[in-house]
């Protein structure tokens, strides 16, 4: 096409359209003109403006950014580029225990959680709870080592239908409900599940369960 100044604007438009579409980067008027065989820049500019209005109502827009032109998804459709797919998963037993300990003892450090649980707690477990939005970092405790401490969040109360942490049953109520009886079954569950973690140390059968491996459990 190129030198033919008689060519209908439509042909120039088409050429520009294809060029910008196929280009790996935005192109300036000069680059477009050169690419189309030395087209007059005024023509290119006019065609770009015309194209821009052709595409204005469409799902794809022709836009100028810093004197360079390119096609992009219409701003109101940007959500189509990144879709979120939600997936509901049940909290693992390890995460549930940690959450319970934070809820009953907050603010609490990781070392304290571990000492209450009697097993090590993987960083992933706390991550999951923070990702769920149920616990949060709440500063550091002013003791040697200045450990990070955790507390529950308002979302936690929300999700579990609690007005405040005081709604959680106390030790006496737990005992009355039989929840403090040594639960062989629960213990065996723990042992049975723990072999999914390669890192179970020594003879400690109660070692941490991995969250990733067992989160749906």
């Amino acid at each position: 096409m190129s030198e033919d100044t008689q060519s209908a604007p439509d042909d120039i438009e088409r050429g520009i359209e294809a060029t910008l579409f196929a280009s790996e980067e935005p192109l300036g008027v000069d680059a477009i003109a050169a690419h189309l065989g030395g087209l007059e820049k005024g023509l290119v500019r006019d065609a770009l403006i015309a194209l821009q209005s052709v595409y204005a109502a469409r799902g794809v827009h022709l836009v100028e950014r810093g004197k360079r032109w390119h096609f992009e998804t219409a701003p109101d459709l940007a959500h189509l580029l990144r879709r979120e797919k939600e997936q509901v998963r049940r909290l693992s037993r390890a995460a549930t225990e940690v959450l319970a300990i934070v809820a009953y003892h907050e603010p609490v450090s990781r070392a304290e959680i571990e000492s209450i649980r009697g097993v090590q707690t993987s960083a992933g477990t706390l991550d999951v709870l923070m990702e769920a939005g149920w616990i949060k970092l709440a500063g550091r405790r002013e003791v040697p080592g200045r450990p990070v401490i955790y507390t529950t969040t308002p979302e936690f109360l929300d999700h579990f239908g609690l007005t405040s942490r005081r709604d959680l049953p106390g030790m006496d109520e737990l005992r009355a409900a039989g929840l403090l009886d040594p639960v062989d079954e629960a213990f065996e569950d723990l042992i049975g599940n723990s072999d999914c973690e390669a890192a179970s140390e020594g003879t400690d059968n109660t070692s941490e369960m991995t969250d990733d491996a067992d989160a749906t459990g």
Partner: protein
Amino acid sequence: MSDNSELSFMLTGEAAGAREPTAEMPEAWPADEVATQGAKAGDEALYLELDGWEGPLDLLLDLARRQKVDLRSISILALVDQYLSYIERAQDLRLELAADYLVMAAWLAYLKSAMLLPKDEQEDPSPEELALRLQLRLQRLGAMREAAARLMGRDRIGRDIFVRGAPEGLRTDRKTIWKSDTYSIIQAYGQVKARTAPRIYHVSDRPVMTLDSALDRVSAMLGVTLEWMEIRDFLPRHAEPELRKSALASSFVAALELARLGRAEIAQEAAFSPLRIRRLKEGAA
């Protein structure tokens, strides 16, 4: 197949001329280059690059094409002659030919002789049938070769047609919604507490009668009389049930031991009837 690339030689006086470029191939095939050079060199000389042919069928197809007629009306006899003369020349030049070229040559020579025989002397299968099969094969190969050329000649992505240069890409982020409930938390807490609560272990002192004391006791009691005694007579009276159980077991083992040593004998009328024991007099056994 014919991968002996040194097979490049010159044939002179080949009136049929240089090899035609196969169809309108848009791609430059390295294998064709020598043949193309041959064409440039003129009709007198033909550079025959066997490597340029993908086997004897390919060479035959090429020769058939030179008849400049539809593959359906080629002269098989002429084709056979051309092929044989190629192979002959190659052999005159003492070129090593791939085995399948020679096998094809032998087969074509057979076909030719059969075709020259009078009809009634022809064997079964008839040479016409064999020739027809050869022709059908050449047609199929020719058809595919043309189809390949047309396919390659199409507008191709990345050469003639372009897709979007910088697509934003579509992403699906998986977001996990965690689920739990209050009971799970309370139950978990109870379990943690129960699991980690200090425990006290009691080791109970259970009443037992050791084998040694049973042995002493049984032999002492057997020394009193020569009469049969039931095993329960050996057990301590008024003992609590647990001790009686232990005493019974130990006394029974003690009785077996004494019987083994020849100091006592054991009798039982029937299964589950009372077990009786009495002393054996010295030297009586």
